[in-house]
């Protein structure tokens, strides 16, 4: 059985962009690419949880970050991911200038649109990894 590609969102609690990153990971893993992507919890990964680290070590993974500090990407690198491909929600919001995401627990409509745009980008990355793995 082919293993799913690990996807780690930052889930930052202070900003809407972190919430959009989290929502994007769920859209990707539950709606867009349920057969190919799996959400892995960042806190578990960074604290060295064996199961979380096994999901990531030596593999290509997707980081979805809400801010420039890129905590998810750093966490994946530190956990031994062979390659970290990034979705930068903070860049995407600049490219979608009309969007004004608000809310953390409950994103507003613009926040959900941004999450969807981020998930679409992540899905493209997942497709690339799947194609490179030769399992498409």
């Amino acid at each position, binding site marked *: 059985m082919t293993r799913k590609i690990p996807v780690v969102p930052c889930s930052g*609690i202070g900003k809407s962009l972190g919430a959009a990153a989290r929502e994007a990971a*769920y859209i990707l893993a*539950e709606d867009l690419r349920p057969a190919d992507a799996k959400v892995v919890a960042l*806190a*578990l990964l960074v604290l060295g949880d064996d199961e979380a680290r096994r999901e990531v070590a030596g593999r290509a993974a997707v980081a979805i970050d809400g801010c420039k*500090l890129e*905590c998810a990407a750093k966490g994946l690198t530190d956990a031994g991911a062979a390659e970290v491909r990034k979705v930068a929600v903070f860049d995407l919001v600049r490219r979608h200038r009309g969007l004004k995401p608000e809310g953390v627990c409950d994103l507003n409509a613009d926040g959900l649109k941004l999450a969807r745009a981020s998930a679409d980008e992540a899905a493209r990355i997942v497709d690339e990894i799947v194609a490179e793995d030769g399992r498409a």
Partner: protein
Amino acid sequence: MPNLPKRKIGLISCSGEELPEGTVTRRAVRTVLETLRPDDTVTLCLPLFLAGGEGERAFARHYPTIAVDGCPKRCAALATEKYSAKPAASIVVSEIAKEKECAAIGTARRLNEAGLRLAETVAERIAADTEKLLNMKSRGR
């Protein structure tokens, strides 16, 4: 020493993305921050804390914190203790869910009604701990 706010309690939620209990921690902490104790609390971003955010770590070294975890792995509490200082209080959502006999709470993406009620209960518990810690601080000064 960084310029730190006065008389605040730091709230650190695990925000665990894999479990609905992680979503409960997140919602409960935001409820305390936005509604129940907005003047007395700040949230510390766990991913940033783990990635080496010096402002977050310095706060947790010098001010009381409440760790709010979804499951017994207690990532928020362990991270706070590892990188700063032992949290002044620690709450585990799965334990409160057991106390309240709250079984199905929805998914990590969407809590159901029971999950939303559980988040309210956890928020009240955090607010009560915040009150206790602020009183202890006042008496200690």
